[in-house]
């Protein structure tokens, strides 16, 4: 089937097999290997990207379902040479070690902070509960998101809501 998907603000029209999963489309056809194919069973969350306004596990989304829609991946989090506060928080607070789960963690955290600018540690854990990290024990991930929340409240960061029509 022919699809047009806007990924990180750029529209891509491609012919894809109906069975092709979104994670494989992003990684293998567009070369965006920041999103990771971890468990293939919706358990680990390493493949999380945004589909329109919502984080989804892209190993459980058919590429055809993304037709006409917008996708945000980790590669689209940095804007105008400036890291998202979430990205900066993960680096500052040691919210990662091996880095495999990090893109999915950060995209879900971005969504959380867009909806709740001052989440408690419990709310952060709840939001990230669909995602697995085998390095950090989660403590520093919670700290990273808290750091980002505080940072964006102080610098007026407007969040990363996707503009209508695919422009970002």
């Amino acid at each position, binding site marked *: 089937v022919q699809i047009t998907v806007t990924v990180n603000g750029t529209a891509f029209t491609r012919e894809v097999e109906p069975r092709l999963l979104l994670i494989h489309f992003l990684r293998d056809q567009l070369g965006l290997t920041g999103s990771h*194919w971890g468990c293939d069973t919706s358990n680990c969350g390493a493949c999380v990207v945004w589909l329109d306004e919502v984080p989804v596990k892209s190993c459980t989304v058919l590429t055809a379902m993304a037709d006409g829609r917008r996708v945000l991946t980790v*590669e689209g*989090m940095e804007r105008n040479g400036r890291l998202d506060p979430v*990205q900066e928080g993960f*680096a500052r607070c040691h919210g990662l070690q091996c880095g495999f789960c990090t893109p999915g963690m950060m995209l879900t955290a971005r969504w959380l902070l867009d909806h709740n600018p001052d989440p408690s540690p419990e709310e952060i854990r709840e939001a990230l509960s669909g995602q697995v990290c085998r390095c950090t024990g989660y403590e520093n991930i919670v700290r990273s998101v808290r750091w980002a929340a505080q940072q964006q409240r102080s610098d007026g960061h407007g969040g990363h809501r996707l503009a209508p029509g695919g422009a970002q």
Partner: protein
Amino acid sequence: MTAAPERNGAYGPIPRKEDARFVRGRGTFVDDIQLPGMLHGAILRSPMAHARIVAVDTTAAEAHPRVEAVITGQALAELGLAWMPTIS
């Protein structure tokens, strides 16, 4: 303990070199690597949890026009490679 902990220098937190690429999705994990002529591999395991291998029939796989190689335990044994890489 009277001195406040140093936030910089030898005892302070030091940014990790690798985080700059990890938080941008620019790490290179094994599955991210693309090389010219790269092949895909698939491992076929016994459907039985505890059984004796009587025979492995590879003819159908070898006859497939896009299969480059079929490697069995027997083939590895003939090359002296049929060992388990464990630390035991």
